[in-house]
């Protein structure tokens, strides 16, 4: 049974990675047909950097992802702190609202925001309201639950006396947050921010309904591309992005490993302080 499971798992991982392999191989292909191997070349990578049509779109995606994940991290961490202090009834109502974007199909979220923006555009008589601002608002909205749901458990694990101790020792609530609480919940904040960032960077469905022609992100452009014959340099871009995300994930992994080691070492107040410095 165990060997069966192992072999099966390897096969499933191959299944998950077949498309990556296909695209990575295609990025080195001299031919333009993804299905026919003509010969090896780096030309697609050269073309990617030379022609400069795709990179600005990637930059657009990164800008939206950075700003929206930062905004969602700040708003979401504040919200998580606030939700902790709520009465149970208020808290469950808030969590129900938080779960709306998580359970709703993305297409419904996209459509509902598109209708809102169109409505506001009509009211204020703004033509072409869809653009950077609408994209950013939509991304912050779907990023917020990820931050909250990854910060809340860390707040739950935290010893509530830590905050009181900080306040007793003369901290203002703001100081207590930046000097004590933030160190306890930082892993949750970071993983929430990273999750928000990657979700935002790769989002297509919601962006597709709220983007405007003046500000296009990479996934939206890929979708518009795929209605025409695809340019092979997009495979090169995919392969590079794959490597970047791989590195990011390994870093996240190391961070997590450190966090776990820290929690193992944490024994009361002294353990926590030692761990926080390490």
């Amino acid at each position, binding site marked *: 049974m165990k060997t069966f499971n192992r072999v099966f798992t390897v096969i499933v991982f191959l299944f998950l990675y077949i498309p990556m392999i296909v695209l990575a191989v295609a990025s080195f292909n001299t031919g333009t047909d993804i299905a*026919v191997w003509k010969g090896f070349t780096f030309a697609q990578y050269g073309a990617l950097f030379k022609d400069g049509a795709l990179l600005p779109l990637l930059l657009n995606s990164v800008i939206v992802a950075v700003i929206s994940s930062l905004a969602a991290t700040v708003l979401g961490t504040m919200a998580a702190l606030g939700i902790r*202090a709520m009465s149970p009834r208020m808290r469950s109502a808030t969590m129900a609202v938080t779960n709306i974007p998580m359970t709703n*199909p993305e297409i419904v979220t996209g459509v509902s925001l598109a209708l809102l923006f169109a409505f506001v555009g009509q009211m204020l008589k703004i033509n072409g309201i869809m653009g950077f601002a609408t994209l950013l608002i939509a991304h912050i909205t779907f990023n917020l639950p990820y931050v909250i*749901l990854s910060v809340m458990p860390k707040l739950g694990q935290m010893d509530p006396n830590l905050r009181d101790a900080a306040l007793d020792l003369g901290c203002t609530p703001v100081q207590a947050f930046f000097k004590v609480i933030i160190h306890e919940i930082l892993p949750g904040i970071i993983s929430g921010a990273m999750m928000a960032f990657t979700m935002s960077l790769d989002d297509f469905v919601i962006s597709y309904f709220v983007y405007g022609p003046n500000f296009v992100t990479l996934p939206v452009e890929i979708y518009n591309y795929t209605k025409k014959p695809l340019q092979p340099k997009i495979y090169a871009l995919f392969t590079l*992005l794959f490597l970047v995300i791989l590195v990011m994930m390994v870093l996240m992994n190391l961070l997590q490993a450190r966090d776990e080691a820290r929690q193992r070492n944490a024994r009361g107040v002294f353990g926590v302080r030692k761990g926080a410095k390490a």
Partner: protein
Amino acid sequence: MESKRLASPYLVWMAIFTVVPLGIVVWYAFTDSTGAFTLGNISRMGTYWPIFLKSIWLAILSSFICLLIGYPVAYTIAGASPKGQRLLYMLVMLPMCMSFLLRTLAWVALLDDTGIINNLIRSLGLKPLPLIRNDAAVVLGMVYNYLPYMIMPLYTVLLKIDRRLTEAAEDLGCRPGEVFTRVTLPLSVPGIISGFTMVFVPAVSTFYISQKMGSSGTTLIGDVIESQFKAAYNPNLGAALSLALMVLVLACVAIMNRFSDGEEVATI
């Protein structure tokens, strides 16, 4: 405590950008293009009933296949060493961070009539197979794209199962198969339900997968909604369809939550 107020910006944000938009969807669903009240959009739902059924059927099928494939994988990951667990979990997450459009296109390149697999088959002197533009291809696309959503909650739940429970079952005379069916499987039900929901919801509402891997016979409800907003500009009908989709998904989630006996459904 005054820190309750820290959540106010968030609550205001969610009210404006989550609750109000849903209200607008309802409002559009019950009005026509001039803004007058009508039930016309809702009554037109009937013609889309077969498409709804098809979407639900393909999504349920995909969720089941994901469960069958995902369970052994999650089980293996949960049984690995802590280091191995982290590595394998990362490998499950990684594909989800890459453009799902391009990954789906890679499947098209593999399965197309002049694609990689059929080229191979041809070079062996055999007849090419109809691998794409059918229901099976759409299901494959769904399974491929959403399998990680099944593995993650299953893994989380399996990891939390107390080893002492399975050991106790063994001590009390259960055979390994029985330990699984009588202890491990029932304890992993919250993960199964959570995974099922997480696969079902995006699968039932997809439009890209069916556009690329399906044929005109596999038009899904997502395709219809998309075309109401992007091609046949009729936002009122689109809103009505979105509303129906939302109600459908909420109903499914509610039904699945009932299965878990009021236990809190595990999230990632």
